[in-house]
């Protein structure tokens, strides 16, 4: 493997990653439903279109917790006891594929699209 081949390989990986990044960023989820996972278990499922007033949710115990704000136009983490605060910096998510993850507190908030098209496929 010579230098040119190595450089080419790196550039291919970079190009695919950048393409993938834009594809993921531009994809929007329809009928968004917020799913909150703690320690790998689904603990809460919120349909955003049914939320009227924004409210706050506290996930975790007294020492390690995340404070989540849920409103009609998105969900975000507003306070966390983790050390890096990545989950707070992710900001509000509404219809993106990228989840909010808090690795130290083992918390994951992701958006899933609820399917309503079951009857459309059943055409005889």
């Amino acid at each position, binding site marked *: *493997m010579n230098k040119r081949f190595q450089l080419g390989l790196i550039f291919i990986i970079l190009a695919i990653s950048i393409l993938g990044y834009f594809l993921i960023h531009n994809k929007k989820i329809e009928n968004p439903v917020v799913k909150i996972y703690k320690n*790998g*278990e689904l603990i809460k499922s919120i349909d955003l279109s049914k939320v009227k007033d924004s409210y706050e949710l506290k996930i975790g115990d007294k020492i390690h917790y995340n404070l989540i704000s849920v409103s009609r136009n998105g969900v975000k983490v507003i306070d966390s006891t983790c050390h890096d605060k*990545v989950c707070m910096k992710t900001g509000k998510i509404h219809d993106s*594929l990228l*989840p909010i*993850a808090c*690795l*130290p507190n083992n918390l994951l908030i992701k958006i899933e699209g609820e399917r309503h098209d079951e009857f459309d496929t059943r055409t005889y």
Partner: protein
Amino acid sequence: MNSVNKIIRLSILSTIALTIFMIEIQIPPLVPIPGIKLGLANIITLIVLELYGTKEAMIVLTIRIFLGSMFSGQVLSFLYSLTGGMLCLGVMVFLIKILGKGGICFISISGAIAHNIGQILIAMIIFQTTSLIYYLPILLISAVITGTFTGIVDKYMINNEVLKKVISQ
């Protein structure tokens, strides 16, 4: 080179790696994506791998990860670091056998990519979800950038006469 000398040099390198690791944790994350960091401690792993060998690199890496997660008090980060670190070392050992010491930058980038893929895999297992795979593109981009930096620093450290006298066996 007797074994006491080697042990002392390896423990000094482990200490340097641990110090870099601890300082790096204190740096606030630049991008709001979990798992992205500079990976500066990998410089030491790479140097030990080049100058000493696979076994020594494995020992230094394990000591650094074990003590590092103990000092930082993060139980979960131990799992992430260990999987990422071992996968990274495995890829680097494999590539250094094929390429020799020529393409250090390439080896370091491949190691960084393997590290991030390992971290995503273990996160997917812990969270029991596949949606974390969407982080992969941005983690790969960051791996290429940080891997290049690590490789360049490594090259300069090994080519430096004074430093080499201190760190090599």
